[in-house]
């Protein structure tokens, strides 16, 4: 286990509850609604995402997690609502502008550009390349220096993600897990303030999962804010500092990972009547153990409140 709750700095001042105020929020969303033909896909009254922490967004299929992601990043328009990023309102801002302001996302179905080389994929992630202007593109002297900087940064990132020997291969030749790594590395090319990962572990083999987890923890070390959607509870428990639970478009629970995942409301919302099937593949002894831990966690939080 790379991290323990004991080391975590408090993210809130008060008791965890849906919509609770964070000490230092990166994203604040208010009254965000999105309906698809009468169905409330997203109906979030208030939610804050803490800065510099890893937040997991969990919930059953159809809970509106990806729709909420799309709304925050400008890939979809809400029926109403407003939200801000790093203190500035970005509701209704076009997706590419949201990305330029430092909120970069990845996709549930990996979008590696397969007919471009791995290096070209990486270079595409960079900002402020004058050669992306059609007139300046014709004069290489105007963009070659920046291209060199971009390439150096790309090589650096590819080395960190162990893709450097693939730099000149077409992205099509990568495995599913390597594409996830490439997508994450590409998102980092622009040095974003916040990265939003939509199911980063889906379809990734267990060996690569560990490596991906470490990369996400590394992001936090560099001060980045991370929000990710995930179904694998092991992953959530292992790396998340904070967990937000969605069901039927609403935020139904929020809290520190251990506490949230043993919350009866969460278990009901998340697993419905089959709550004994999988909450991170726990055996009954482990569940009992978890319950004890929860007690400890709750006590600690109460201590925090009073102290």
């Amino acid at each position, binding site marked *: 286990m790379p991290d323990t709750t004991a080391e975590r700095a408090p993210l809130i001042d008060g008791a965890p509850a849906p919509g609770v105020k964070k000490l230092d929020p990166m994203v604040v969303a208010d009254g965000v609604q999105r309906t698809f033909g009468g169905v409330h896909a997203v109906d979030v009254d208030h939610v804050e995402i803490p800065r510099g922490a890893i937040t997991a967004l969990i919930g059953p299929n159809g809970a509106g997690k990806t729709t909420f992601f799309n709304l925050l990043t400008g890939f979809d328009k809400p029926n109403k609502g407003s939200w801000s990023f790093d203190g500035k309102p970005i509701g209704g801002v076009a997706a590419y502008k949201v990305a330029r302001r430092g909120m970069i996302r990845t996709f549930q179905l990996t979008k590696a550009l397969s007919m471009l080389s791995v290096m*070209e994929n990486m270079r595409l992630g960079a900002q402020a390349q004058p050669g*992306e202007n059609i007139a300046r593109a*014709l004069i290489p002297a105007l963009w070659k220096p920046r291209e060199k900087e971009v390439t150096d940064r790309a090589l650096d990132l590819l080395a960190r993600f162990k893709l450097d020997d693939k730099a000149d291969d077409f992205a099509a030749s990568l495995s599913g897990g390597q594409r996830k790594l490439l997508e994450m590395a590409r998102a980092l090319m*622009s040095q974003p303030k916040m990265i939003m990962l939509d199911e980063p572990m889906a379809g990734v083999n267990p060996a690569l999962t560990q490596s991906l987890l470490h990369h996400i923890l590394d992001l936090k070390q560099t001060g980045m804010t991370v929000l990710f959607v995930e179904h694998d509870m092991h992953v959530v428990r292992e790396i998340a500092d904070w967990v937000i639970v969605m069901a039927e478009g609403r935020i139904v629970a929020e809290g520190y990972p251990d506490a949230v995942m043993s919350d009866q409301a969460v278990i009901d919302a998340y697993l419905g009547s089959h709550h004994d099937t999988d909450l991170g593949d726990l055996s009954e002894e482990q569940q009992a153990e978890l319950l004890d831990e929860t007690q400890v966690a709750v006590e600690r939080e109460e201590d925090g409140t009073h102290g």
Partner: protein
Amino acid sequence: MDLSFLLLALGQLISPQTIAYALAALGLAVQFGFTGLLNFGQAGFMAIGGYAFAITTLRLGFPFWLAVLSTIVATTVMALILGIPTLRLRADYLAIVTIAAAEIVRYVVKTPDLIPLTGGSDGLNGSSITFDAINPIPPGSYGFGPLRYDENDLWIIIVGWIFVLLVALLVRQLMRSPWGRVIKGIREDEDAVRSLGKNVFSYKMQSLILGGALGGLATIINIIPTSLQPDNYGTQTTFFLLTIILLGGATTVFGPLVGAIVFWVVLSLADGVLTLLINSHLLPISSVQQGPIRFIIVGVALMLIVIFRPSGLVGKKREAFFA
């Protein structure tokens, strides 16, 4: 046996028609091959560009360079009109709108009420005056062997090929630049490119304008040695162009040039061989049936290429369009 058709086919290697189709196909390759825009109305861009040139030359007395500029302006306006409502939507909307727009253009210029301006169904003659006026080649007959050109034909062939090669080099430079990287990214997955902070709409619009302008300029080369005929810019022209870029390689710069040459030479050869066979009573068909049959031959050739060489004649296998 009359083998003069071989000469005709040879002439197609460098004819102004081949140059025009190469240029228009290059424009379509920028849009379709590199950006993934389904422009099914390249013939419409060609028509708009041609009429802008011919009308400003013949009716308004513009000098050559100003008439060329009018062509670029006209195709740009058309690209904006078609692109603004459709480029934010799924790719197929652009296809529907462009195919309809091209037909609208053709019907409008053929309207009898517009004969004083567009010449109606007869089209416009003589728009080569300003171009011929700047011809530095002394009058005479030029060529090698039995291929002969007068000074004006030679002038347009020389200028046309130089222009096409310059444009091809320019497009190649663009596609190798960061601009081209964004364009190729959009072809693959525009949401991915958008998520990386690129204004996808603007890039698609630039591509549509650039490709449309090349289509318009192509028509100038096509009409200078002949005349502007509205029915030469029907839907079939767009599909000839698509055939050409798939033949040569849709994701390459020189593919459309090779494709245009092969297309017109093969069409001309097929025509000649068929005529020969019919005249020697070796084929039990009439000369009326001959026209469609050469297109059947082209169609079969296209199928074979898509099946056995999906990246086109000069394309790299990994960038195959029908992989």
